[in-house]
């Protein structure tokens, strides 16, 4: 018995089968929307990732020293790598660029009680345009992804990073209190938050209450009007609210609003978001299925001013849901042809014919003097004498009929 490396997971056929099926659905879908696949490298310099990532995630990176003595990391997500790729000054691009990716990411767990470190992310990025229509396209594609996989019951929460920033700004807090409030919101400790806010003498106490009610600032678009009423007309946050409305209106035109919830209390744990943020949920599982948003300053960290918007789906969580929903699970069982050596050429040609039609065939050679050719399928085992060797195709085809 040899130990599996801590935090790693072996993928066996059933789960991998479901995962590949989901990946194929998503890749086909993304291509249909005009996105092209890219493959960023597995490893990046720490100095690259450091520019873009927040403190919490930086502590969870897999870090190594390469042979030149530079600190390198396994990628913890794709977005930063794609920003680095497309920031190259030697790359001529016509915007908007629509790309997608599908691969493994590596992060140490956020809690000492978890172990898993390797995950599959499938996602898209739209680079080069800061427009409401791109924001809406990305949310629509996220919804279409969950529908395409066949998830019936889901919801996508949308918001804008400017909501939370705007509320904090309008409270006019000193830096220290602002930081402790930010830390409590990060920890989702709303009892602690309430205690701090009740003890402050705020210029706009109602805005303080808005923060206490943060997890419940949600609904359809009316929640934006409700929240707007707490602010003076000159405040920056109103432009933020307006942007959410514009995105919402497009999603209404797409006929997708029944899947969308405006959740002004949404906070994402990556620091690079600058606009739209969103997450997708199913009642079947306690974690988001997808997450994304707009990050217009990420590329400028790498020397190019390029707005961008995207999202990623967490494939293992989708597998968990689809496994529960008995996602036409059983992988096709291959048919086995066991043949005496003198039939090798004939059986190979028959097998190739079926394989081309998508029917999986296994060839197994028998001892030299074997009098029978044997076909093992889901319906049974057939031993064919020399006189019946013309019937091989017929039997395999019958297997298919019965099976299908």
């Amino acid at each position, binding site marked *: 018995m040899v130990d599996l490396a801590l935090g790693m997971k072996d993928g066996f056929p059933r789960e991998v089968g479901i995962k590949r099926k989901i990946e194929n659905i998503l890749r086909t879908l993304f291509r249909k929307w005009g996105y092209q696949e890219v493959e960023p490298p597995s490893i990046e310099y720490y100095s690259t990732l450091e520019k873009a990532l927040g403190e919490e995630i930086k502590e969870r990176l897999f870090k190594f020293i390469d042979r030149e003595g530079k600190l390198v990391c396994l990628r913890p997500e794709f977005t930063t790598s794609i920003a680095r790729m497309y920031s190259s000054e030697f790359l001529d691009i016509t915007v908007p660029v629509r790309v997608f990716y599908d691969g493994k990411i590596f992060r140490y767990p*956020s*809690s*000492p*009680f978890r172990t898993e470190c390797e995950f599959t992310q499938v996602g898209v990025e739209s680079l080069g345009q800061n427009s409401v229509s791109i924001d809406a396209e990305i949310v629509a594609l996220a919804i279409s992804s969950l529908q395409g996989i066949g998830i019936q*019951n889901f*919801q996508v*929460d949308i918001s804008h990073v400017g909501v939370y920033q705007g509320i904090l700004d309008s409270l006019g807090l000193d830096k220290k209190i602002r930081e402790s409030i930010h830390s409590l919101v990060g*920890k*989702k*400790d*709303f*009892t*602690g938050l*309430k*205690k701090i806010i009740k003890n402050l003498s705020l210029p706009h106490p109602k805005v303080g209450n808005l923060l206490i009610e943060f*997890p*419940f600032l*949600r609904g359809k678009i009316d929640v934006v009007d409700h929240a707007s009423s707490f602010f003076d007309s000159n405040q920056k946050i109103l432009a933020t609210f307006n942007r959410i409305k514009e995105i919402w209106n497009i999603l209404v035109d797409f006929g997708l609003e029944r899947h969308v*919830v405006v*959740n002004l209390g949404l906070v994402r744990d990556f620091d690079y978001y600058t606009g739209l943020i969103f997450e997708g*949920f*199913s*009642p079947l*599982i*306690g*974690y*988001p299925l997808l997450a994304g948003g707009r990050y217009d300053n990420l590329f400028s960290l790498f020397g190019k001013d390029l707005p961008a918007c995207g999202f990623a789906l967490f494939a293992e969580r989708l597998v968990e849901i689809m496994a529960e929903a008995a996602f036409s699970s059983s992988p096709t069982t291959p048919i086995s042809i066991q043949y005496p050596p003198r039939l090798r050429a004939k059986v190979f040609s028959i097998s190739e014919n079926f394989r081309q039609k998508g029917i999986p065939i296994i060839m197994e050679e028998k001892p030299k003097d074997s009098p029978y050719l044997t076909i093992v399928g889901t319906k049974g085992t057939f031993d064919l004498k020399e006189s019946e060797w013309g019937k091989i195709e017929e039997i395999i085809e019958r297997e298919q009929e019965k099976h299908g």
Partner: protein
Amino acid sequence: MDDKLTISLPTGRLKKDSLALLSQLPDWPSGFEFESRKLVFEEATSPYRIVFSHPKDSSTYVEFGAADLGIVGKDILLERGNEVYELLDLKIGSCTMVLAGPQGVTRSQLWEKEELRIATKYPNFTRKYLQERGITADIIPLYGSIEVAPTIGLSDAIVDLVSTGTTLKENQLWVIEEIVPISARVVANRVSIKIKAQLIQQFIKKLEKVVKHE
């Protein structure tokens, strides 16, 4: 979709006080015999499904979505660091997390010790507490009778919950630092709070009124 709220309640110390609060809710089911040894209570007409758990497990049930809401001591939340929303302070089960040591010992005496050992039921919390103060110590995780650890020479000090201080006195200990006030909290699962937002918000509002009247 499931339109009931599953609530995880702690057995033990907090059970009685939690139920005393909850039973004041207008829609709290009256027919359940919570005194029995049963752990899951459910009936068609009740808007709540109630699951009793070990007090240390309540927030874990919530984190993993086995319950939408839970009642749990703040001490457990600090120790486990569960990814849950903390929504309401119930102001029951109040006590204080303290650093305590033999009577007469001061904090600087402790911090200056060459090899400091601290016994606790809260090793994760204690590690973070010491790290924030720049102190290195050996942490001795114990499951019970923390107060005797200094007396029998197992540790120099303890990090533990104190309510009246009687147990400390009986063991010739005193409070060196009050670290953080503790009481029971209502926590919510991070997906439930989105999928069942209205139910949860209404529940919290109703419960808040009961807490304020205390």
